[in-house]
């Protein structure tokens, strides 16, 4: 086992990892930028090293600085958290060459899943369903029509270099497809400097369901149930829950076994997440895999009772997973609300600033993961996540009520946050009934869909 770990991250996830290390008796080294000198992760680690300026490129993304800090503090391993260097295969390779354990998958694991298109092809090969359509560039109108006829309308045109919903066009028939194809190419060129587009079957109002997996270096792979992350806005998740209100135990087992099959197929190591889309008929499509711990991991921890960060550290130290699939039980329901310093009533624009007054929720069924405190200055340099509230109840209904109660307690002045968004969401009758898709937030707020009807 490691005696000392460096945490190459900041904010709540750095604190989360420090907590796991403390409970395991492992000493911790925090790294921080000049903007984060008064941050809690700096205060709570055993050692802390300033590695650069506020800009991430100078600090948290600065590989030489991170490695150098690891060397001068003589750590045996680095935990990358999420974001920053967590899915950087090059960084994982450098760690390896410096004889520092990267707490995460192998560089090869990261590389394979980092190329989203290649990942889908490879998962299709082992029998996972993917969204029907081209997995390569569609050169012209005629090819587009041929593909659309094969996969059936509606279809969606996407920019190869795209992301975040930009440059997408939905087409319900051939006339629309013909008229949209050139426009889509032009938009792709304009937005991404690359005119390449591809065509997929359009999945209307899907659910985003992801499966948590855990793999050790001895070839054991487990699934820890699903998370429903359909509540998102512009591809930013806002609320996650486990179990999903639409996944029954049969579907859970099927999704879990697919996820384990995927992990096994390329000898995955560590904690990972397989993302699926579910259409309205509950058809399942593999989307991608995230080769890191995720922001929303606590909901899985609450319902399984398994500390995922501790397991990441254990498997990185080549330990065997201490349980079998049959040992994993799901208890109650857990919901996570991401409290971001964003003005919900003003297009979710980030609202950094100093916290003059703070009351965090507490009491039964509530877990708080946060790095903020009264007097803390929320920095404009990093993401706007200020706290995760996790509610755990004996069922979804109780978890929702606990969360509503917790939101009503949360005071953070004068910062504008997503708390009012969540309060509104939690009283929406469709949400309460569990009837929602990835379009739900847009619909609730009366915002435009990211993908235009072609």
């Amino acid at each position, binding site marked *: 086992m490691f005696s000392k770990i460096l945490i190459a991250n900041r904010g709540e996830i750095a604190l989360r990892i420090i907590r796991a290390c403390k409970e395991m008796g492992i000493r911790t080294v925090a790294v921080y930028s000049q903007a984060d000198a*008064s941050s809690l992760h700096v205060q709570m680690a055993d050692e802390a090293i*300033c590695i650069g300026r506020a800009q991430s490129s100078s600090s948290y993304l600065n590989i030489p600085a991170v490695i150098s800090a690891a*060397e001068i503090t003589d750590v045996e391993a680095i935990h990358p958290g999420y974001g920053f260097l967590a899915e950087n295969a090059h960084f994982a390779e450098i760690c390896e060459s410096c004889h520092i354990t990267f707490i995460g998958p192998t560089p090869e694991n990261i590389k394979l899943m980092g190329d989203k298109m290649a990942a889908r092809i490879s998962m299709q090969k082992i029998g996972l369903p993917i969204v029907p359509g081209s997995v390569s560039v569609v050169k012209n109108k005629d090819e587009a029509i041929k593909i659309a006829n094969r996969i059936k309308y509606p279809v969606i045109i996407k920019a190869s270099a795209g992301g975040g919903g930009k440059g997408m066009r939905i087409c319900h028939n051939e006339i629309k497809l013909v008229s949209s194809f050139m426009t889509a190419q032009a938009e792709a060129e304009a937005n991404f400097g690359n005119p390449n587009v591809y065509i997929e079957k359009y999945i209307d109002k899907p659910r985003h369901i992801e499966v948590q997996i855990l793999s050790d270096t001895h070839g054991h792979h487990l699934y820890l149930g699903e998370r429903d992350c359909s509540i998102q806005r512009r591809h930013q998740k806002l609320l996650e829950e486990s179990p999903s209100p639409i996944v029954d135990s049969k579907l859970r087992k099927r999704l879990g076994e697919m996820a384990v099959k995927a992990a096994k197929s390329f000898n995955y190591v560590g904690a990972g997440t397989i993302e699926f889309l579910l259409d309205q008929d509950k058809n399942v499509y593999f989307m991608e895999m995230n080769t890191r711990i995720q922001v929303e991991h606590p909901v899985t921890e609450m319902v399984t009772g398994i500390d995922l960060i501790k397991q990441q550290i254990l498997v990185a130290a080549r330990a065997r997973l201490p349980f079998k699939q049959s040992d994993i039980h799901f208890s109650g329901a857990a919901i996570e609300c991401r409290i971001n310093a964003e003005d919900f009533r003003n297009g979710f624009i980030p609202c950094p600033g100093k916290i003059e007054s703070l009351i965090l929720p507490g009491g039964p069924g509530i877990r708080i993961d946060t790095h903020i405190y009264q007097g803390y200055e929320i920095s404009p340099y990093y993401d706007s996540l200020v706290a995760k509230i996790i509610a755990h109840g004996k069922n979804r209904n109780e978890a929702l009520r606990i969360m509503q109660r917790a939101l009503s307690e949360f005071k953070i002045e004068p910062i504008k946050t997503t708390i009012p968004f969540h309060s509104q969401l939690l009283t929406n009758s469709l949400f309460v009934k569990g009837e929602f898709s990835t379009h739900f937030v847009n619909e609730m707020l009366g915002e435009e869909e990211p993908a235009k009807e072609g």
Partner: protein
Amino acid sequence: MNIKEIKEMISLMNENGLVELEVEKDGMRIRLKKTASGIEGVSGPIVIERQAMQSAKASFASEPVKEASSKNVEIKAPMVGTFYRAPAPEAPPYVEIGQVIEAGQVLCIIEAMKLMNEIKSEIKGRIVEILVENAEPVEFGQSMFIVEPL
């Protein structure tokens, strides 16, 4: 009114939770003001150094230290790594206390990821103090030398 008195005032402020203290006497005016985390505002002829961050671990200074009688400046580490005073274990140090240095002159080496990075002075001056021991680690922004500009 001297530094000792100001220090006493600051410790009085800290002990008693004052946020502001202003004294005017014989054409001299001192005003001290605190935020939640430290002493902040400064005016008058005597300049008090910005208080270090709360964390014991944040040992870098974000502002040059200026004493009443001098304009000494700090030379800080531009990267994390191991500080070496000489190019090789047997070689003489690049600089010694009291030595006059030119702008562009190498002051030390910081080793990071097995690379030896020569750290040069940006100013001409005289070395007043060397704050880091040979072969000790330095973090980003850590003061290494105090130099009196010439």
